[in-house]
């Protein structure tokens, strides 16, 4: 079964999809291995869990590790700074600012800050 057309799978090894459009909390999406419920509003190009991910498990995008899960992540969940972290340097982000469509992050403000965008 193929996955939802609103989700992009960049590499067959990936544990996440990329949202092609904005997704609303409560919507259901087809992951290719069954239906999953979107756990909060997800902005364009943010990540959605393709399957259940265990704490400590690598997050794969482009077929490559982009960090590690910090908690259990259910399929259909938004995958971002609140449930994953870098294996290199901490990620700096501002609190809220409409970020992931209004979900304040428990990690907001933590870590380093970068200049170049």
């Amino acid at each position, binding site marked *: 079964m193929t996955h939802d057309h609103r989700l992009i799978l960049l590499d067959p090894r990936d544990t996440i999809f990329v949202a092609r459009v904005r997704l609303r909390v409560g919507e259901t999406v087809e992951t290719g291995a069954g239906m999953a419920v979107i756990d909060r509003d997800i902005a364009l190009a943010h990540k959605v869990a393709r399957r259940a991910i265990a704490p400590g498990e690598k997050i794969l995008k482009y077929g490559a590790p982009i960090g590690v899960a910090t908690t259990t992540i259910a399929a259909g969940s938004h995958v971002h700074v609140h449930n994953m972290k870098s294996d290199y340097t901490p*990620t700096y982000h501002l609190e809220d600012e409409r970020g992931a469509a209004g979900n304040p992050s428990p990690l907001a403000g933590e870590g380093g800050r970068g200049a170049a*965008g």
Partner: protein
Amino acid sequence: MIGPMQGYLRSNGRKGIRNVVAVAYLVECAHHVAREIALPWREEGVHVIGFPGCYPNGYAEKMMERLCTHPNVGAVLLVSLGCESFNKYALERVVAASGRPVKTLIIQGTGGTRASIREGRAFVEAQRDLLDAQETVAMAVSELIVGTVCGGSDGTSGITGNPAAGRAFDQLIAEGAACIFEETGELIGCEHIMAARAITPELGAVLEQSVAKAARYYATLGYGSFAAGNAEGGLSTIEEKSMGAYAKSGASPISGLLKPGDLPPRGGLYLLDVVPDGEVRFGFPNINDNAEIAELIACGAHCVLFVTGRGSVVGSAISPVVKICANPETWRRMEDDMDIDAGRILEGLAGLDEVGAEIRDLVVSLAQGARTKSEELGHQEFILTYKSFEPLGPACLPAA
């Protein structure tokens, strides 16, 4: 097509796609006078560049030499306060030896602000007239040097804009051009796959070392090359941002590693190492995107491809900046500032190859009379700060 590519021939055989008069201040104390001199020609090819520091710095002097003798520059006015440490005599000799008209204005000797502005404007006016009368010559894609940078990245950048810029790079390189990608601090996590593309194993090791150096440098600072807007745009970690940024490099073999101000010796793909050598000194490697753009231009870039997701508006002095908008929502908000709509890829309205070809054609059109959005809007940002580098090692530029 609008006709063949045309360039301005310089005495060393290189050709420029612009014919700029550079007004260069040699310390911040001379910045205002330089800006006032250039003001009447702000839309007519007189650009202000400069170095604010009063203490000497070898990197800054090399950058200024390369920028003042860039193929897009036809004449140079150096503006000195008089007492700063910058070696104005050495810079003037280098510019004069390149065959370009050059004048050094020393504000303390000329009699202050008013007299200096008057004298500076007289020189610029004369040079502008001469440059406007200069004939162009035919130019080929193989004579181009093109840089790429990403800024204001978000989750779309690594899916649409960056890989499309990579496709444009592949095509330009196939046509003989030299292309330069950068920001080793934004390649953290990609070092091994990148090293495998080097034309020699020794160069591969050098590429890996350059990223390891960046990781160490940023770890010491306690900051990554990651801004708050990157996270808002869906990027969660530096590795994720890196994987997206890496896509700008395309799929060509990597022919060498450059440091700011080094010219690519021939066509091919080059990585620009922007992180200083040695102990952490002088602060952040590049305090903003324009610092990186200036370094790409100092490596000879005729134009710079700038991929943005969040929506940067910047351009640059000396060389045109092509803005590739990765995010379709940003395109709809900021179309006036953007040259290429790569967000169509996300919406399934265009493919990577199609947008890549569009970018390549736009680069060529810049030598056929076309101007970028940032040029039309008068963007001429420029910044240069302190850094220190060691010279390139023997493995950095293997013979082809």
